[in-house]
């Protein structure tokens, strides 16, 4: 990805940005996030099919922010996360350079948020094809089967909160599970406590999840927790005809009311 390296060098040399957030190869061959602050180190940047982590999670991280203005390597899920973060007033779009990557893996020229919005609008925003089969299989299950499936999966949870920490939309400085006076969600990682956590997490992401799948990918014990939020993405689209991360002025589906909202789900 020579274009990407050249662009990163240019941005750093001209001091247009102070850090480029991208990917590099780790010692065991996996792609991982890289924070390039010096153009001499920009050659480490890579982009290939291994680069799947949603880097937008770092845009709200205190120590990354402290580095200064950032450029970020952004595939579609990252671009959508950026839109969400702007619309939820967590970041300022003008303070960010987006090094967009097309679905074919080419560097896109993104001058501003409007250009990025155009690219997002032209893209397929539904849940990625690789997850659709599993989602459809889950939808076919009876409520009892679904409950048994999730009980089995969630019993593995160790409450490491990697799902939360990996998610760009889980940026709260104090999560509900950390509110301990009183303790709302049981701390112990038993099936009951795990279920409460994962349901809470999914509900907080309803209408906000941009279907990157990072929560499931980051889970060290392999719980497909991304299927919970992706299922809600489908639900939200069915009811409200919107996908998250399509505009910098989106209002949250679950916290706004429109007189013509469907209410068929209220019994």
């Amino acid at each position, binding site marked *: 990805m020579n274009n990407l390296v050249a662009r990163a060098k240019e941005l750093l040399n001209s001091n247009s940005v102070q850090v480029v957030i991208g990917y590099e190869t*780790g*010692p*065991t*061959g*996996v792609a*991982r*996030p*890289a*924070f390039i602050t010096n153009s001499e180190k920009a050659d480490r940047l890579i982009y290939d099919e291994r680069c799947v*982590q949603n880097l937008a*999670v*770092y845009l709200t*991280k*205190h*120590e*990354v922010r402290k580095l200064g203005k950032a450029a970020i390597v952004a595939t579609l899920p990252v671009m959508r996360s950026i839109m969400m973060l702007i619309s939820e007033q967590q970041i300022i779009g003008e303070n960010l350079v987006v090094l967009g990557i097309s679905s074919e893996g080419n560097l896109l020229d993104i001058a501003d948020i409007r250009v990025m919005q155009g690219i997002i609008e032209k893209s397929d925003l539904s849940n990625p094809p690789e997850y659709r089969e599993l989602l459809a299989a889950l939808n076919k299950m009876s409520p009892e089967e679904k409950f048994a499936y999730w009980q089995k999966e969630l019993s*593995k949870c*160790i*409450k*490491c*909160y*990697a799902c*939360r*920490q*990996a998610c760009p939309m889980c940026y709260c*400085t*104090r999560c509900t599970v*950390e509110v*301990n006076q009183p*303790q709302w969600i*049981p*701390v*112990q*990682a*038993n099936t009951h406590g795990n279920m409460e956590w994962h349901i809470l997490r999914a509900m907080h992401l309803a209408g906000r999840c941009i279907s990157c799948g990072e929560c499931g*990918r*980051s*889970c*060290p*014990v*392999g719980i497909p927790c991304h299927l919970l939020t992706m299922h809600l993405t489908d639900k939200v689209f069915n009811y409200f005809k919107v996908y998250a991360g399509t505009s910098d002025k989106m209002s949250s589906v679950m916290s706004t009311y429109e007189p013509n909202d469907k209410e068929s789900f209220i019994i």
Partner: protein
Amino acid sequence: METTRKLIRKQSLEKLYKLLSETRKIYAPVIAADKQVEYKYNPAFSDITFDHIRSTLSAKNVVFPKVENLFTFTNSKTESTINDIDLNKIPEVILWGAHPCDNAAFDILRSIFCWDITDEFFSKRLEKLVVIGLSCHQSDDYCFCTSVGLAPESSKGSDILLSRLQNGDYHAQILTEKGNSILNMAGELFEPVSAEKELITEVKGKFSHEQVTEKLKTAFENPFWVENSLRCIGCGACAYVCPTCACFDIQDETKGKNGKRYRSWDSCGFGLFTLHTSGHNPREVQSQRWRQRIMHKFSYMPERNESLGCVGCGRCSSGCPVDMNIAEQLEALQKI
């Protein structure tokens, strides 16, 4: 105790397993449906894996469960009645087929849990534990036991250590009285050692832990910590998969008049971990928490517990969602 060396044939292992499972619980690694290797109580012998490099979670759950009830209580208008947990009900368990890194971790955990006051729960579980270890005949890039004073065939922490032979049989080193009691119980299954070669993997050294410990004495304020932890997202995966991480949280949960106090795994990677009631947090940002993790294992523990807090299993690195590779970082740290 002097080590006894024996041979146990592949087909005799199953007989040994069956014999032991008649009287005790067995905790052994199996390959789950999603291909992850996990420890289970009393799995079918045919499900046990003898070829895994590392299980996702370590075996520490057997002595330090992810949730341990400490006592139960009943409240009335005037008083609370506390009911202790009957520690004698903690069962005898055989840890079967755990690798030397996991087994060496028990002594490290003991140095924490029994440092000044003996933790009754932990020490009872350890007392009731017999470890039948399995030397490693395979390893990968995440393994670094040889950099922390261990080896793929270390016997530390095992009561019996099995090593695979080229023909599929196993050599068994009987290392402790606990191991000897198994030998006495199933003597007919053990034969004299053979001349067959033991299959032991090679794990390359990556750093010198002595040098790392030395370097850490003056590295507290080094920019290394910020630079190398930018990608850390602050989850607790590394601590929870670690065989030696021992931090726990204590909580009361009540339902009506009844309740219980339990402890559950905690992690120094979490922001809440050191948050004071005043609102002040001495480890406010992730780099400080990452530094704490390394300092604790490679500086504070050697100083206070006279042992490293790491066995080189590589789980924290292989399980990390953002590739915070500890061996790579210690190698780099050695050079600063």
